[in-house]
């Protein structure tokens, strides 16, 4: 895909903003285990970067997904994966279904402020009982008059502590498990929503991750996204964008891992020469670069399919899988060349190493990606 001057200008504008306004603060946010999401989203929203491919009708720019992809990559230069992920949740994980299937009134109420950055959103799919088997979630939304009454627990919810609304998946029917769920927008200040705890994690530390109880939470049925009992299908659709975003952002973080490792090993002397001047080291880095480039190619193939309006599930699934695999080998491989510094808390590489480890788990584990792919190949065992 040929990127235009405007794509490049978008990337440069985001990178500059990150350099000046975000990266100077990330160490504090990592230490605090949370970051000022409203403030950061507000600033990014003012630059138009939260509504890149969202409809103009609700304050978005209506550009094709390639622009959003450029932003996803640019956010990889935030020296805290958690901040980037939180923004990704807002733009490409909790809003795609709302944008596509939500009523105008619902979009007006929640999508518009998510685009300006006034609201922070979260996506509530996973539960304590399991995240891989989405069809088996337990949360229910029972109809009562014009409302839904929601009961259940959501787990691992990114932005959960600070969010203004949650795009929640709940059982709304008794039919087969893929046809009995709905996506419902729940304002987080509604009575009965309780943040049970903020989960302590090995990485993505600046991102708040919550366990959330829903106890007789009442929201109007008008808050349902699209048709009733179509939620599982909508969520599977929404996952494609989430997974592509994850792969794009991850690739950029891995590029940063390689770049900072080159810079470090060029300066660091061992046995009378820079670490980098060992062919063992520079060959390994070249190999990793080739793999990241291959991931980029796969990512952009997925982006092109989305732009062309095609179903990108297969490619997005592969991209997410490869991103997860490379997250482990590249981050670990780079960290190794930092010696003791790589194992210390204050090096750039150690944070990348911890942050990208999530890629193989969040948004569907590697094994879930493989399961999807075996179906495409007609070799699934279940």
């Amino acid at each position: 895909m040929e990127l235009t001057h405007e794509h490049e200008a978008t990337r440069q504008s985001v990178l500059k903003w990150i350099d000046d306004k975000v990266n100077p603060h990330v160490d504090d946010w990592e230490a605090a285990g949370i970051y000022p999401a409203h403030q950061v989203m507000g600033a990014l929203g003012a630059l138009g970067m939260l509504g890149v491919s969202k409809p103009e009708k609700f304050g978005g720019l209506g550009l094709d997904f390639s622009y959003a992809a450029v932003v996803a990559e640019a956010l990889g230069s935030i020296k805290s994966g958690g901040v980037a992920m939180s923004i990704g949740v807002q733009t490409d994980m909790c809003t795609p279904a709302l944008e596509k299937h939500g009523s105008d009134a619902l979009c007006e109420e929640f999508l518009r402020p998510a685009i300006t950055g006034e609201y922070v959103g979260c996506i509530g799919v996973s539960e304590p009982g399991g995240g891989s088997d989405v069809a088996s979630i337990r949360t229910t939304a029972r109809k009562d008059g014009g409302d839904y009454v929601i009961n259940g627990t959501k787990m691992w919810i990114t932005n959960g502590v600070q969010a203004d609304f949650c795009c929640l998946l709940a059982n709304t029917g008794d039919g087969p498990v893929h046809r009995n769920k709905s996506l419902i927008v729940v304002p987080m200040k509604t009575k009965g929503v309780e943040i049970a705890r903020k989960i302590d994690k090995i990485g993505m530390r600046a991102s708040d991750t919550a366990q959330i109880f829903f106890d007789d939470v009442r929201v109007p049925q008008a808050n349902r996204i699209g048709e009733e009992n179509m939620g599982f299908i909508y969520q599977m659709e929404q996952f494609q964008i989430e997974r592509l975003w994850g792969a794009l952002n991850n690739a950029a973080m891995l590029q940063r891992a390689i770049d900072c490792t080159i810079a470090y090993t060029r300066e660091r002397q061992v046995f009378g020469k820079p670490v980098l001047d060992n062919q063992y080291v520079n060959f390994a880095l070249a190999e990793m670069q080739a793999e990241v480039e291959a991931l980029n190619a796969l990512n952009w193939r997925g982006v092109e399919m989305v732009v062309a309006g095609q179903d990108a599930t297969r490619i997005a699934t592969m991209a997410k899988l490869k991103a997860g695999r490379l997250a482990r080998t590249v981050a670990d491989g780079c960290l190794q060349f930092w010696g003791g510094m790589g194992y210390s808390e204050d090096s750039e590489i150690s944070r990348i190493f911890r942050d990208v480890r999530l890629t193989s788990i969040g948004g569907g584990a590697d094994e879930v990606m493989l399961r999807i792919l075996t179906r495409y190949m007609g070799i699934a065992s279940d």
Partner: protein
Amino acid sequence: MKVLVPVKRVIDYNVKAKVKADGSGVDLANVKMSMNPFDEIAVEEAIRLKEAGTAEEVIVVSVGVKQAQETLRTALAMGADRAILVVAADDVHNDIEPLAVAKILKAIVDEEQPKLVIAGKQAIDNDMNAAGQMLAALLGWGQATFASELTLDGDAATVTREVDGGLQTITVGLPAIVTADLRLNEPRYASLPNIMKAKKKPLDEKTAADYGVDVSPRLEVVKTTEPPVRSAGIMVESVDELVSKLKEKGVV
């Protein structure tokens, strides 16, 4: 009134410059280039004047290679109204000297009749700190260099200047040339809507010949060298050893 802002495409301030093997200059092949940071400040100041209703139009000009149009697009995305690109070189390594730039700018000023020119105080590539001053001389206009604050009042500009001893405040009659220092303002980031709008803003392409200016260099670069590398230090075991080493070196 119109405000004219000259902008230069230079090596990005984050890039570690490398000298070309033949020592003729800094290697710019495949190197990230950006708008000179002081020019960005100048553009920002001009846009603020427009937003405040003091200026009607902000025109940005760049003299250099064709790729400088990217720099102009950046300025348009920040909020400038139109751009003039003066192609004066076809190789990025061919830097146009301040006097030639000033002559071209003078021709453009004669044509456009701005009441104010805001330039960066210097370009970070060769730190000449000359084009603004030369332009003032060629036009016979007043100049206020190293501005850290600018207020317009009728036909005069009050400018606070960063000078060695502190701050100096002067008043210059318009038309005038102001050159921007680091603390004049904090330039904005181009927003996505403005990046898309910039696509449709006019960008005129001219050549140095259109203005009858000879851009051939008058200065000769004799040699360019990397700054000397700091040699590695040594570890000493004790204060005694430190003192004796310092004595050896003749520093104490």
